[in-house]
């Protein structure tokens, strides 16, 4: 069982370039998330999705876009890369059926992105 898979693991971008961070999960989880982790800080939520076709903003959505066309995939798009987007990006997923639910989020291994 692969869990949550993120690609690429590392990437260097030039200012103004665009790219898509890929995330796929094989656990049939309905909820998926994108977080960013800046040096020495905790993770902050960028976007999340509660199911295919449904996405919503998190705490720090500016400069990013997402889509959720399938249950398995949740790509994160950077349109005009800026130095402030240099960070480590984590994708996560969880299963939610009904409240209460203590199901934890399962994380990918992260993508280290540098924008120069």
């Amino acid at each position, binding site marked *: 069982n692969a869990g949550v898979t993120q690609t690429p693991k590392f990437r260097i971008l030039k200012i103004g370039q665009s790219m898509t961070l890929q995330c796929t999960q094989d656990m049939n989880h309905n909820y998926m998330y994108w977080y960013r982790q800046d040096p020495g800080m905790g993770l902050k939520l960028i976007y999340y999705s509660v199911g295919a076709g449904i996405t919503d903003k998190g705490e720090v959505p500016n400069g990013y876009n997402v889509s959720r066309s399938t249950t398995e995939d949740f790509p994160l798009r950077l349109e005009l890369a800026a130095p402030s987007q240099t960070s480590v990006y984590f994708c996560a997923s969880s299963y939610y059926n009904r409240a209460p*639910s203590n199901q934890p*989020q399962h994380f990918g291994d992260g993508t280290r992105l540098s924008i120069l």
Partner: protein
Amino acid sequence: AQTVTQSQPEMSVQEAETVTLSCTYDTSESDYYLFWYKQPPSRQMILVIRQEAYKQQNATENRFSVNFQKAAKSFSLKISDSQLGDAAMYFCAYRRGDNQGGKLIFGQGTELSVKP
């Protein structure tokens, strides 16, 4: 808005000794979940332990246990018989209990070093 605070940026423990990591949170919700995640240098996010707010009994997982004080909004992690492999960044996280996307709010993290 909910917040999570970890007031100890760094902690150190001698191998085989016990260490306690602190976490406080602020919420007006009565139904929520709390988690501790471990992030070793490999950057993976690994679930250590979880606690449901409606449970009075403190959660335990082998050498890891929590001291959950709901009235004080405190959720500390105790690691007993510390091992070299416990060295990592530890994050406390909060999640609302209702169907609001299952988003996690993370603290800033505590870096734990283990001395042989």
